[in-house]
């Protein structure tokens, strides 16, 4: 059962990193426009126009 000594902290660290990732996303306003984010992914203005053949 000694394996738990380091497995448990790893599990906790993973969970905490998830929590902090969420809190960071919340803080940077990534949840302020949920509907917009769903639509922005479809727009492709950020792609350089492909060279015409």
């Amino acid at each position, binding site marked *: *059962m000694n394996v*738990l000594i380091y497995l*448990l902290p790893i*599990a*906790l660290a993973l*969970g*905490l990193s*998830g*929590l902090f990732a*969420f*809190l960071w996303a*919340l803080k940077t306003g990534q*949840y*302020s*426009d*949920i*509907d*917009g984010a*769903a*639509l*922005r992914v*479809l*727009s492709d*203005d950020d792609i350089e126009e492909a060279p015409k053949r």
Partner: protein
Amino acid sequence: MTETLDLSLYTKPAGNGVVAMDLAVDGIACGACIARIEGAVKSVPGVTEARLNFTNRRLHIAWADGAVKPAQILQVLEDNGYHGHPFEPLRAEQEQAVEARRLTRCLAVAGFAAMNIMLLSVSVWSGNVTDITAETRDFFHWASALIALPAAAYAGRPFFASAWRALKARSLNMDVPISLGVILALGMSVVETAKHAEHTYFDSAIMLLFFLLIGRALDHAMRRKTRAIAGNLAALKAETAHRFAGDELVSVPVGALKAADRLLIKPGERVPADGTVLGGMSEVDESLITGETARRKVTAGATIYAGSMNYSGALTLKVTAAGGTALIDEIEKLLDKAASAKSRVMRLADRASRVYAPVVHLTAALTLIGWLVAGASLHDALVTAIAVLIITCPCALALAIPAVQVVASGTLFQANVILNSGDTIERLAEADTVVFDKTGTLTLPEPRVANATGLDGELLQKAARLALSSRHPLAAALAREAVTRAPFGGAVEEPGRGVRVNIDGAEARLGAAEFCGVPCSSNRESAGVSHIYFSYLGQTLAIAISQTLRSDAVAVIEALRARGLDIQILSGDRSEAVEPVAQALGVAYWKAGLKPAEKIALIQTLRNNGRRVLMVGDGLNDAPALAAAHVSLSPISAADVTQAQADAVFLGERLKPVLDSIVIARRARALMTENLWLAAIYNAVAVPVAIAGAVTPLIAALAMSGSSMLVTLNALRARGVKS
């Protein structure tokens, strides 16, 4: 003279020589609008940032100070087919945003903790029936404590703070048993862990917080959404006024007006502020204020009120101090009175918790005493009592009502009804009498062509298209009939007389009778009906413009009556104008010519007779009546003061949202009651088990999540209610 638009009121410095402004944008239809709007605004030289929030339809823009005029950006939006309106977030909305973030953070922490503790707990539960060693179990329990204690200290704050406030005020709310349960459960679990016990309740305590926070966050999100939409609508409605700066005219937002400003009010515009007329002569339509549809003649010295429609001539107005006029003062006095007389309606959740909280505490205390008397040790009796507290903690109860409210308010939103307050749904469901105002509520807020069916259609279309070139209110009413929205080129407006234009070489005229060569016949003008004339190629049309009923008014009144509601009309207009409306709708009880105070008195009488009145009104004169009624609705075209009083606002030109709101609210109310019963049944089953001392942490976890899920799923049935 070109007029400049001054929007400095709405711009704010954002540092580094950059200024920013927020706009509420109207006309956004689909996802492609995001790129179009942002692209168009960013292409203006000097603009450094343009970001559209699609969820709340707001555009944030920033530019190098002095490089761009704000009005220029509005014009760019206009050119692309959108209307942008400068926007100042209300303080309440900002506070709510802060609160929402706090709740979400608490929810995230509680969620994280609940999942990780569950991970440990499930191991312990399965280990307890197989081969876990006491050392491993202790290790897991200490690890749980390490997660649970800080998480509860953080995520529990909303409950602890609220419970503390209640206790300080010497009362009990739902948060008192919750806080007590969580704190005792955690404390007991730490003690048990130190004693190498088999059971701890870290998981129950944290899961309880997690479920409760979901309920809170949902409730909050719903209110925030409606608040944001209401804020946008207010911004879209906010108009600009023409203010004299010396001899020049400057367009300023109405919010920037101060007392003693001199304004120009053109025909066809709404009066932006209360004031005294300095010069000019005109007629004003005060139906939004008093409900009276007949127009009033005003000359220099007259007092006019914000919201009146200026009809025939340009007026110069001196703004008087806000709220300084007799009418507004009277309305406000009545409002105070009506609001204080309104017995505080107790929300269903409050009523439930008022019964619930003492019962929970008493049951736990009795359990403790009972076990002690029966000869159990203090430790065992205490553990059982705490288990009772945990199991009775109103998890399902706390979700039962917010979950239904969120789903129902979403359904209401689809039916074009926007709620102003959280408990509106419950009160709407209780209404048994509907009192309508007439002007602007049963009738459309703007006058319409009344005799369209009796006129030559082609000629009427020409007249309507010509009307697009005029700002006169009668022409504006006629212009709504136009199918082609492009005005004729080269139309000339002669102020106070009419407009003329050449169509295919012949002159067409629209305006007053003499302007169109029609003999003036005074007998045509009856109460509430005005005529506008059109002549073309020797043909003339007399077009009657009057207040018309909303297209579905008759059907909606019929349906309301079929649902057992008593319908009444209380109007400030003259009885000649009210009677035909009441007859058309088949409403037997109506009163006309009422002052605001009389409306309140009539509503009070209804209340005293045990009626629950839903008041639907739009005028400034209705505001006190709305406040006095059990629940109130107002159309979006209503006066600002009135809208602020209403519990909900409905959009669009139809009356159907009034019917929908009642149908949806009744359905939601039924589901809330059902949910409360589900929660009660759960307690009836779980509490005896807890009192008997048979609740293990596993049973507590299953019971809590099971009942929470059940009420949430039941709440989803409030979706897609049709009337």
